[in-house]
């Protein structure tokens, strides 16, 4: 029949029209500033720098290796190395970034910086309320504004963050074990050297080793 499709369409829109007043589940719109949808875990927008512990300057994981700076496709990361060194999370002395800027008006949220960082120092943030009336200054994030704690990272990306934490703990344990082993070896070597140098005291250091317990 001619016009049947049109009538069907009209009925459908009429149903939508009245239905939206009757049943609330039809209206899927979220009334934004008052209501927020929970974000899914894989949400990402701009990168931030992770630090451990309470002090963002002491705990900063970044060692200013500048890999991310080189890899960033639109070149929106700017890093200046420090002259001095500070101990990193594993106790090793490392340089750190004296300046670390990301221009988020240029950043395209590709996450490449995160992928290439060997130190788990840079991760993707979920904060999207970035609008401001200052076009340049407010969108150029400096080191301080970029730094967020590991707890924050755990809160926004729990799965990913706990995996990173576990890996780092493992590495730390390995390092500690290695350090202990090295220390033992060193201690044993020292003891041996001492024993060699002084054969009269031969029995005493061997006593614990020879103790049949």
């Amino acid at each position: 029949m001619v016009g049947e499709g049109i009538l069907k369409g009209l009925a459908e829109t009429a149903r939508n029209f009245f239905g939206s007043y009757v049943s609330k589940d039809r209206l899927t719109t979220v009334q934004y500033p008052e209501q927020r949808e929970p974000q899914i875990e894989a949400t990402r927008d701009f990168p931030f720098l992770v630090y451990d512990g309470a002090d963002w300057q002491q705990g900063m994981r970044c060692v200013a290796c500048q890999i991310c700076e080189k890899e960033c496709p639109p070149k929106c990361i700017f890093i200046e190395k420090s002259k001095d060194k500070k101990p990193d999370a594993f106790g090793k002395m490392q340089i750190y970034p004296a300046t670390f800027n990301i221009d988020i008006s240029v950043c395209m949220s590709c996450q490449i910086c995160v992928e290439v960082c060997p130190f788990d120092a840079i991760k993707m943030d979920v904060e999207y309320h970035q609008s401001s009336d200052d076009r340049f200054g407010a969108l150029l994030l400096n080191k301080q504004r970029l730094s967020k704690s590991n707890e924050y990272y755990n809160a926004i990306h729990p799965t990913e963050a706990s995996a990173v934490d576990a890996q780092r703990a493992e590495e730390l344990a390995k390092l500690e074990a290695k350090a202990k082993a090295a220390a033992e070896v060193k201690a044993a070597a020292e003891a041996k050297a001492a024993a060699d140098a002084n054969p009269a005291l031969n029995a005493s250091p061997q006593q614990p080793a020879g103790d049949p317990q």
Partner: protein
Amino acid sequence: MTHLALMTQHLDQIFVLTSHWLLSYLPIALQPLCSAILSVAAIIIAFATLFALTTLLERKGLGRMQNRYGPNRVGPCGLFQPLADGVKSLTKEDIVPIRADRAVHFMAPVLLVAASFMGYAVLPIGRNMVMVDMNAGVLFFFAIGSLMELAVFMAGWSSRSKYSLLGAMRAIAQMISYEVPLVLASVVVLMQAGSLSTVAIVNMQATYSGIWPHWFVFTPWGFAGFALFMIAATAESNRSPFDLPEGESEIIAGYYTEYSGFKFALFFLGEYIGMFATSGMAITLFLGGWSAPFSFLTWIPSYFWFFAKLLTIISVFIWIRGTLPRLRMDQLMNLAWQFMLPMTLLNLLTTGIWHFMLPGFLRWIVCSTMVIVPCILLGSGLKYKKKFQIRTYHFSQ
């Protein structure tokens, strides 16, 4: 009882009486001029308000049809949204393309709005509420309506933009094609009423047998004429599904691509005012103008009925817009020339037969058949003719 009747009569004529009372304080020489100014002001205020209301209704209605809320931020339930829109369009920058023809570019929206308002001069909004009772009112209305085409083409031509020009060409092609069925569909009423005066046409329909009014839409030819008129009116006012001249997804916004700020708003206003005017004409010709739908409801003021009918038609327009997708250019033309034109011509014949047959059951049957059967045949014939085939693109291979 007479007291009550007098009161309702006064309520019905309240605007007319107020105007007379105001004018009576003026010297005789000034009265015609001031009377004209007063009516113009009243029409502009009333229909501009209706325009504001309609934009809100449309956005809300379309939203609901798509299961959204629509505007709900400005004022209670978003009621002041039109105000916010107005302020926004007033404060926006007015950009004129550097190579545009400035004078014509400026004139186009002004002419469009002026032309669309001029049609109201002959629309009887209520009993005794018509600006000029011209004896060629309907003719005047359509003549003024075709001025809008000129404005549209001025806009498209002066912008010096390919989108504007394409949009204008489409608009002209469409408006001229649909002008023919629009006028032919209204001719049936003129045949029956024997007058070109809008006031006389409404007066003819404002009589009752029993409780039923003598609206022309309640006859087979009237109904067909009304349907054809409304389809053509939709196309005339460039509304969906005939909104090719604007076609946001194809040619940005058609002939007003290069307009911004308040000039854009003027185009918007002109288009809506034009739509109200053609709807008002449809009401005048077919739906009995300001007359009440039942004889026992005549105590309600006449202008109320006019606006109630207008709002109903506007709602249907919005409903259609929320439902139908846009036609293609060839579909549009086919509809105009292969369906609308034969149907309107046939409808003329039907009206003639109706006029010369004796009133009774038989003429109902004959005329209804004459409307329904060709409609179905023509419709399914056109549908049947459509062949589905693999398209070959000559230039891409």
